[in-house]
C-alpha cells in the first residue's frame, strides 16, 4: 500500500513538473513559432512527460494488487489498476487538450511560419512510447488529438479546390483512423485467444462504428437539418416581431423540441423523432389556435398557415431522414459483421495480418456492396425521393414567408425577378425568330437580285436598294448572337452571319 502511495506521489509530481514546463512553453509559444522550435520543444516536453507517465504507470501496474483496496491517498484514487488507468487517461487527455488549446492559438501565425505540417507530425510521433502495454489506446489518443489539429489547419491553400480536397482527405483519414480503432479493439480483445472467431464478433462496438458511418455519409453534421432549424428559428423570430405575442410561445416550443431531436442517439432516433414531431406539432397547434381565430383573412393568417404547414413538413423530413439513417446504419453494421466473421475465420485458419490496409481494403469492398445493395432498393429510392421533395417544399415555404415579410419594402423580390427573366427569355426568343426571318428574306432577295441582274442589268439598282432595307434592320436588331474574331474583337451579327 505504501509502495502504491509513493508511486502515486511520484505521478502527482510528474504532473506538476509537466504543468510548470508547460506554462513556460505557453508563454513563449507565439513568439518562437516562426522557427518551429516551439513545436519541437513542446513536443519534447510532452513526450518526456508522457514517457515518465508511462514508466510510472507501468511500475505501478506491475506492483499493484488488483484485489487490494486502495488507501486514502486521494479521494479520486480508484480501487484497481483498470479504473486508475482511466483516471490517468482522463488527466492525460485534459493535458493534451491544454496543449492543443495553446497550439490552436499559435495556428494564426501558421502561414508565416517556417515550420511545416510534416515537422509537426514527426515531432508528435509517439514512437517513444510504442513499447507501452497500452499502445493501442495511446496511439488512438494521440491520433485523435492529431486529427483535431489537422482539421483546424488554416484554409490557406491556393484554391478552393485544394482546400476542399484537403478537407476531404482529412475527413476520410479520420474515418480510416476510426476504423483502425474499431479494428484494433477487436484485435486486442481477440489476442487472448486468436483461434476464437467469436471473439472478433463479440468485440465489435456498434456505437463506435456508427460514428464511422456518420462521417462517411455526412450524418454527423446533419447540415441540412441544422440549416433548416436555423432558418426556421430566424423566421420565427421575424414572425414574432411583426405579428403578436402568441408567436413567442410558438418560437420557444419549436426551438426546444427540434434542437433536442437532432442530437438523438441513432438507435432511438426514429422514436424520438416521432415524439419530437408530435410534441412540436401539438405545441404549434395549441399555440397558434387563438391567433388563427383572431386574425382576419389577411397576409398574417396566410403566413401563419404556411408556417404551420412548414413545421409539419419539417417533422416529416426529420422522421424520414431518421428512417433513412436507420437503414444506413443497419447496412453498415451488417457489412461489418460479415467482415468480422470472415476475418475471424482467417485468424482461426492461422492467417497472418501483414497490414491494416488488408483489412481496410476488405472493409471498403464489403461496404461498397452493402450500400449499393441498399441504394438499389425501392424503399431507399422512395425515402430519398420523399426527402428531396420535402426539402424543396420546406425551402419553398421559407421563401414564400420571406417574400411576404419583405413585400412592404421597396426591393425586388425573387418572384419579381422571375417575371423579368421570363420577359427577357421571351423577348430574346422573339428577336431571334425575327432575325432568322429577316435573314431568310435577305437571302431570298439577294437571290432575286442576282437572278434579275443576270437577266436584265437595268433592274439591278432598284432591287439592290430594296434589299438593303431589311439588311439594315437586321443589323439594328441582331443583338442575340456575336461572332467573335480571333483577335478578341467582336461584331454583332445574326446567329448565322459570318463576320
Amino acid at each position, binding site marked *: 500500500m505504501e509502495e502504491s502511495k509513493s508511486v502515486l506521489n511520484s505521478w502527482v509530481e510528474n504532473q506538476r513538473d509537466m504543468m510548470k514546463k508547460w506554462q513556460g512553453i505557453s508563454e513563449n509559444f507565439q513568439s518562437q513559432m516562426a522557427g518551429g522550435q516551439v513545436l519541437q520543444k513542446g513536443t519534447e516536453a510532452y513526450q518526456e512527460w508522457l514517457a515518465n507517465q508511462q514508466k510510472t504507470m507501468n511500475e505501478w501496474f506491475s506492483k499493484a494488487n488488483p484485489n487490494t483496496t486502495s488507501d486514502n491517498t486521494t479521494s479520486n484514487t480508484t480501487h484497481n489498476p483498470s479504473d486508475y488507468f482511466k483516471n490517468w487517461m482522463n488527466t492525460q487527455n485534459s493535458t493534451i487538450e491544454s496543449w492543443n488549446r495553446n497550439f490552436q492559438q499559435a495556428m494564426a501565425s501558421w502561414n508565416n511560419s517556417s515550420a511545416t*505540417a*510534416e515537422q509537426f*507530425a*514527426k515531432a508528435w510521433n509517439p514512437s517513444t512510447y*510504442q*513499447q507501452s502495454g497500452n499502445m*493501442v489506446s495511446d*496511439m488512438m489518443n494521440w*491520433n485523435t488529438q492529431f*486529427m483535431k489539429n*489537422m482539421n483546424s489547419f488554416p484554409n490557406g*491553400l*491556393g*484554391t478552393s*479546390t*485544394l482546400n*476542399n*480536397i*484537403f478537407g476531404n*482527405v*482529412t475527413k*476520410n*483519414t479520420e474515418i*480510416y*483512423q476510426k476504423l*483502425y480503432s474499431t479494428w*484494433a479493439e477487436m*484485435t486486442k480483445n481477440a*489476442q487472448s485467444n*486468436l*483461434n476464437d472467431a467469436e471473439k472478433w464478433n463479440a468485440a465489435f462496438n456498434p456505437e463506435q462504428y456508427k460514428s464511422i458511418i456518420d462521417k*462517411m455519409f455526412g450524418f454527423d453534421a446533419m447540415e441540412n437539418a441544422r440549416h433548416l432549424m436555423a432558418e426556421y428559428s430566424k423566421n420565427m423570430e421575424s414572425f414574432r416581431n411583426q405579428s403578436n405575442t402568441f408567436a413567442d410561445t410558438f418560437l420557444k416550443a419549436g426551438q426546444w423540441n427540434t434542437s433536442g431531436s437532432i442530437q438523438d442517439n441513432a438507435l432511438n432516433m426514429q422514436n424520438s423523432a416521432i415524439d419530437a414531431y408530435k410534441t412540436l406539432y401539438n405545441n404549434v397547434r395549441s399555440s397558434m389556435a387563438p391567433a388563427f381565430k383572431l386574425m382576419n383573412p389577411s397576409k398574417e393568417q396566410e403566413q401563419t398557415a404556411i408556417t404551420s404547414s412548414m413545421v409539419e413538413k419539417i417533422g416529416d423530413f426529420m422522421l424520414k431522414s431518421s428512417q433513412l439513417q436507420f437503414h444506413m446504419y443497419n447496412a453498415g453494421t451488417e457489412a461489418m459483421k460479415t467482415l468480422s466473421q470472415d476475418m475471424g475465420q482467417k*485468424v482461426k*485458419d*492461422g492467417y*497472418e*495480418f501483414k*497490414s*491494416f490496409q488488408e483489412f481496410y481494403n476488405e472493409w471498403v469492398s464489403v*461496404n*461498397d456492396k452493402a*450500400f*449499393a445493395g441498399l*441504394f438499389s432498393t425501392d424503399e431507399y429510392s422512395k425515402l430519398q*425521393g*420523399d426527402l*428531396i*421533395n420535402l426539402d*424543396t417544399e420546406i425551402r419553398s415555404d421559407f421563401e414564400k414567408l420571406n417574400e411576404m415579410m419583405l413585400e412592404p419594402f421597396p426591393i425586388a423580390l*425573387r418572384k419579381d*425577378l*422571375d417575371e423579368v*427573366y421570363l420577359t*427577357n427569355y421571351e423577348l430574346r426568343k422573339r428577336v*431571334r425568330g425575327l432575325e432568322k426571318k429577316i435573314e431568310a428574306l435577305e437571302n431570298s432577295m439577294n437571290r432575286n437580285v442576282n437572278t434579275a441582274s443576270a437577266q436584265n442589268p437595268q433592274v439591278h439598282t432598284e432591287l439592290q436598294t430594296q434589299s438593303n432595307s431589311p439588311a439594315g434592320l437586321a443589323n439594328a436588331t441582331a443583338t442575340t448572337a456575336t*461572332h*467573335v474574331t480571333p483577335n478578341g474583337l467582336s461584331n454583332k451579327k445574326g*446567329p*448565322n452571319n*459570318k463576320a
Partner: protein
Amino acid sequence: MESKMNITALMEEAVGISMRLAKGYDTLKNLDEIDVAISPKNQVWKDGKISLSHYTRDSKASIETPVLVIYALVNRQDMMDLQPDRSYIRNLLNLGADIYIADWGYPTRADKYVTMDDYITQYIDDMVEFIKKDKGVEKVNLMGVCQGGTFCTIYSAINPDKVKNLITMVTPIDFNTTDGLLFRWSRDMDVDKVVDYYGSVPGQFLNDGFALLRPMGKQTKFMSVLNMIDDHDKLMNFLRMEHWIEDSPAQAGECYRKFIKDLYQQNKLIKGELEINGKKVSLRNISMPLLNIYAEEDNLVPPSATSPLNDHVGTSDKTLYKFKGGHIGVFVGSRSQKELAPSVAQWLSERDK
C-alpha cells in the same frame, strides 16, 4: 493453428497515415494552379452565356468535315481535354480532325426558362449553321457526349440533312433500365418541386447523387491521395480530376424538367413520343452513319441505356463500339488515348467523302 500479429507494426502503419496527411498539407500548400483544358482554341461564336470554340491546328485537317463536340450540361467539357497526355481532343486533333466545341457556360436562375428544345433547335442549330458557313460545307460531324449525345441524337433525327456522321459517346437513349441507380432514383423524384424551387438546378444537387453511385468511392479516392503525395505528376492528375468534378454548372430549370420527365421518367424518345417544338421525334430519321460508343463498366449510363440506339435508327451504317472502362475512362483512361481516339478518327476518315 496459432496466428501471429505484429501490433507495433500495425500501429505504425496507422500512424504513418497521419504523417502522410501532414505531408499532404505541405504539398498542397505549395501548389498554385490546377490547369485543365489547355489545348489552344479560339472562341468563334457567342450567344449570351453559350459559346462555340474552334481548336487551332498547325496543319490542314486530314478529316475535312468539321466535328462539332456537344458535351452534357452536367459538369464541363474540360474533361475531354483534361491534360496534355490525357486529352481525347488533342488526340483527335493529332489524328487529323478539325474540332469545334460547345461551351454551355454557367446558367443561373436567370436562365431557368431555357428549354431542352432551345438547346437543340436553337443553340446547336446555330452552331451547326455557323460552322457550315465558316467552313463552307453542307454538313458537319456531330459528336455528342452523355446528355449532349442525347441532344445530338435528337438534333440528327430532326435535321438529318445537316449531319454527315453522328457519334454518340456514353449516351442515354433507353431510360427504361434498372441497371443504373440514377434511372431508378429519378422515378421517385418530383422534378417539378425541384425546378420550381431552384429555378436552375445546382450542380452540387446532381453531384450529391453521383457520389452515391459508388458508396465507398469518396473514401477510397481521398485515401489514395495520401499514397501519391510524393508523386507530383500523379497528384496533379488527381487534382485536375477533382477540379473538374467541383466545376459543376447548374442546369437550366425547364430543360432539366423536360429531360427528367420526358426521358428519365417516361422514356419518350425511344417510344417515338418525344416532342420538340411541338413535333414528334423519330429515331428512324437518323439516316447518317452512326458510331455509338458505350462503356462496359459505366455506372452512370449503363450499357443497357446506351446500346439500344442502334436498334432504332434508320441508317444501315451503324457501329456499336464497346469500350472497356467506365464513364469517365472513355475520355481520360489510357485505353481511350491508345485505342478509342484512333478508332474514332479512322471511322470518321472512312466516311469523310
